[in-house]
């Protein structure tokens, strides 16, 4: 192993600029002659747009332009596309309504865009925006799944009958019905997966530019995947050739899914910049983020689990209603389907599974991928119903799980819901988590807490999730409109330094360090010699960006393969210099050696020779630069066990997480420090979902949790210090063996928390609590018991 290579807890290369205030986020950029945009958004959930009077705004000081939906409609551009096409169980395609960047006749959620005011300063833009008068004729709205699915409910889209976008299924219905027919016991649960607002601390921002001389457009944007944004903006919402559009995502302050998608503001600033011949910038105020960043989760489900007399799972039925909001965001149709229904085998050998998902439109912000995206919803449902089954049957929660686990010897394991797990060892992660969390001694701690007047509970979840969505051919067959590969280019400079160009994007994940470690490992050079470049479509060949815990498993694999190409080309050069045959050259520790001799050349010497090819193999191209596009053969399947311990104050209903243990199998770990940090962050979001966070609309579609006054962000004092560990079974189908770590924390933790809360209250007869388990909800449950 190189000193800074795979497995080393290298401190991050990118930290210094962030620690000294030298980071460069989109809103930090200053462009010559720039103008400022303020967005005018609908205050109504559903209304007809009758008139927009903008004369006063146009004459206000500093105003450069006021643009409305009528301007867009006249040019027939500005429709924001979605990236997936899902078919209903009857074979019909989903209802795919338009999504104009500025509304022309109807608004469909609070925050929907109506107009854009551009001025010389931010204050002038805001002041002029206040002068724009918009006449709305309010229409009835549906703000929740319950409202949208009532008979005769108002329609968000006339073409979507009963507000249904599609009604999808997966699994074998007949086999599942048969399993239920021979079951000894059937347990059921109704549950809600609460709607969340991602809340990256950096608000979204975008700057558009247009160069009249060349016809080149540039978009600086807070995006997790600049190439995808270029594709969607260039080919769909604007219609400009990709070679005339550069998308730059500089430092980005967190994403968690919310910055994957192509948003209307990205189109608007580029379009306006071209109209005005000046840069146009926009940065969301936090209140805009709440009403325009794609939300996450928002499911209502009913599920049944069939068991035999020994507690073996025979079948699982799931019926889910999923809220998509008012428009189809970029990944939205995939989230409650292929990222959800395919996960219901979990860690278990359940032979028959049938999942139905009906998605509905509502007059709310579009719902799309948020950390975990479909998988937290599936894992929450499954791990709750397993706990309910254990209690109903009087079986031990751990034993029931063990009895149904897929054994380590059963991999590769084909599930009844399409996916095939490549590797895992669920008993091992469970054992490690139980030991680390001192599960066995819990009853003593419960007693001790009881003596202090506190209700203490413990809960666990054992989960599997799927990352690195792939391969492209399969994704295409399922309805993806893009590929799901990744690219990496490795440019070795004549003096031995290396630039890596990756199509993934780091917005906190530490790629500049982890990817440099892969190169250090592969080429035997110090990481200081490696520079990792991302986030600029003019510098990077192509890429699909960062989401779904894919960067290392897919982008890292591409990099490892590109490095191998460099090593292989170097062998040809070394063989020539050392007058040996290529097959006799070994590469190790940064040196090419003729096997069994002390004759060698350093990697640096080979790099120089590639660019100064005086003594060089005939027919070999000079230069040392290689690119790899890697399309994985399968998803990866991280798994693990999370254990949560809570104490509840029965007088106030306040739940305190007193201990949290996570043991995750994320495959091969490149940087254990960064992996632990990723898990910590995911846990905080999962605990936040379980106890604190929820996006609330009233019946009229007003967003009640529209600021940090109304939306409970997890704060330091709400959370414990975590105990985390890993247990690796390498991924069998990628060259690195890594599975992905970005989302495991947010996926495994919510059911562990709620299982602990229910455990603390079970003696009172509490069987289930929906998230978030707020003090009020817990207090009422205690009082009602």
């Amino acid at each position, binding site marked *: 192993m190189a000193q800074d290579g795979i497995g080393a807890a290298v401190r991050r290369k990118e930290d210094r600029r962030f*620690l000294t205030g030298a980071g460069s986020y989109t809103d930090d950029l200053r462009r010559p002659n720039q103008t400022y945009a303020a967005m005018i958004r609908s205050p109504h959930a559903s209304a007809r747009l009758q008139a927009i009077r903008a004369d006063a705004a146009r004459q206000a000081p500093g105003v450069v332009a006021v643009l409305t939906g009528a301007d867009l409609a006249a040019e027939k551009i500005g429709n924001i596309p979605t990236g997936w096409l899902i078919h209903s169980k009857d074979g019909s395609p989903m209802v795919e309504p338009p999504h104009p960047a500025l509304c022309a006749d109807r608004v469909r959620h609070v925050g929907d865009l109506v107009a854009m005011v551009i001025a010389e300063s931010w204050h002038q833009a805001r002041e002029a925006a206040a002068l724009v008068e918009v006449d709305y004729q309010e229409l009835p709205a549906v703000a929740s799944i319950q409202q949208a699915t009532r008979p005769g409910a108002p329609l968000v889209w006339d073409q979507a009958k009963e507000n249904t976008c599609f009604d999808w299924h997966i699994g074998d219905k007949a086999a599942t019905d048969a399993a239920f027919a021979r079951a000894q016991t059937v347990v059921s649960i109704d549950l809600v997966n609460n709607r969340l607002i991602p809340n*990256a*601390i950096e608000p979204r921002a975008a700057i558009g530019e247009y160069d009249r001389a060349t016809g080149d457009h540039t978009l600086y944007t807070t995006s997790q995947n600049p190439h995808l944004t270029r594709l969607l903006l260039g080919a769909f919402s604007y219609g400009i050739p990709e070679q005339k559009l550069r998308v730059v995502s500089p430092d980005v302050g*967190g994403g968690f899914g919310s910055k994957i998608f192509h948003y209307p503001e990205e189109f608007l600033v580029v379009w306006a910049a071209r109209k005005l011949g000046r840069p146009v910038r926009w940065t969301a105020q936090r209140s805009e983020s709440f009403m325009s960043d794609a939300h996450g989760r928002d499911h209502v489900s009913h599920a049944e689990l069939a068991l035999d007399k020994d507690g073996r799972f025979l079948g699982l039925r799931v019926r889910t209603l999923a809220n998509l909001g008012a428009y189809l965001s970029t990944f939205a149709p995939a989230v409650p389907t292929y990222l959800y229904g395919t996960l219901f085998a979990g860690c278990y050998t359940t032979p028959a599974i049938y999942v139905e998902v009906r998605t509905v439109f509502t007059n709310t912000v579009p719902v799309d991928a948020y950390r975990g995206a479909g998988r937290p919803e599936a894992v929450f449902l499954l791990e709750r119903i397993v706990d309910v089954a254990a209690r109903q049957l009087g079986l031990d929660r751990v034993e029931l799980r063990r009895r149904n686990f897929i054994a380590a010897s059963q991999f590769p394991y084909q599930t009844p819901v399409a996916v095939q797990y490549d590797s895992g060892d669920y008993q091992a992660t469970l054992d490690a988590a139980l030991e680390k969390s001192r599960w066995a001694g819990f009853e003593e701690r419960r007693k001790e807490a009881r003596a202090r007047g506190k209700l203490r509970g413990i809960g666990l979840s054992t989960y599997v999730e799927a990352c690195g969505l792939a391969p492209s051919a399969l994704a295409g067959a399922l309805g993806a409109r893009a590929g799901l590969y990744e690219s990496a280019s490795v440019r070795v400079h004549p003096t031995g330094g290396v630039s890596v160009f990756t199509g993934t994007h780091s917005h906190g994940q530490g790629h500049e360090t982890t990817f440099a470690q892969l190169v250090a490992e592969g080429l035997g050079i110090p990481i200081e010699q490696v520079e990792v470049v991302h986030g600029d479509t003019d510098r990077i060949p192509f890429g699909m960006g960062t989401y779904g815990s894919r960067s290392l498993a897919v982008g890292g694999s591409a990099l490892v393969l590109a490095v191998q190409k460099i090593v292989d080309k170097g062998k040809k050069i070394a063989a020539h210099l050392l007058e040996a045959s290529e097959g006799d050259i070994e590469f190790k520790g940064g040196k090419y050696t003729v096997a069994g001799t002390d004759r060698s050349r350093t990697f640096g010497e080979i790099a120089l020779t590639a660019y100064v090819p005086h003594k060089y193999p005939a027919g070999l191209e000079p230069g040392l630069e290689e690119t790899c596009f890697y399309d994985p053969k399968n998803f990866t399947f991280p798994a693990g066990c999370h254990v949560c311990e809570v104490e509840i104050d029965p007088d106030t209903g306040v739940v305190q997480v007193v201990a949290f243990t996570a043991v995750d199998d994320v495959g091969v770990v490149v940087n254990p420090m960064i992996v632990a940090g990723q898990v910590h962050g995911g846990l905080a979001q999962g605990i936040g979902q379980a106890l604190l966070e929820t996006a609330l609309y009233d019946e009229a579609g007003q967003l009640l949790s529209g600021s*940090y006054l109304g939306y409970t962000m997890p704060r*330091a004092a709400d959370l414990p*210090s975590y105990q985390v560990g890993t247990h690796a079974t390498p991924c069998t189908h990628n060259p690195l063996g890594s599975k992905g770590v970005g989302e495991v924390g947010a996926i495994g933790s919510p059911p562990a928390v709620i299982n602990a809360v229910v455990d603390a209250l079970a003696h009172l007869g509490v069987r289930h609590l929906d998230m978030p388990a707020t003090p009020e909800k817990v207090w009422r449950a205690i009082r009602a018991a």
Partner: protein
Amino acid sequence: MPAITIRLNGKSVACQVEARTLLVELLRDRLGLTGTHVGCDTSQCGACTVHLDGRSVKSCTMLAVEADGRSVTTIEGLATNGELHPMQAAFKEHHGLQCGFCTPGMIMSATDLVARRPGASEAEIRSWLEGNFCRCTGYHNIVKAVQAAAKSGGR
């Protein structure tokens, strides 16, 4: 427009500002110190935290004119001669940052805490950081970093 003079990161700066200008607007938009960030509009996220006469304040919640005649330190003024402040070094050593957006405010807040309470406990650190949101780290490593910096005298 009011004329003000502030001592900014150890140097005297004189400028004219509109009376309504927030301190953070002066820092970011006029003076080009973009290390201080804006993450919300309700004074809760703490990304804009700077020091005013050595005490942490949210620069989105005070007017630039209120800083007249006073000393302001931003994240750009914390390192000396290129050497990281002990709190900055501790954040790096303990992986107390990921995306880096909350980091400047977090560090300015934490240095104030450690100056006030050098022996702060984990509970005190967590309670003090109530006004600084981080969405990436789950706070675990931030708390570790602040504890470590406190031990090494990182004020």
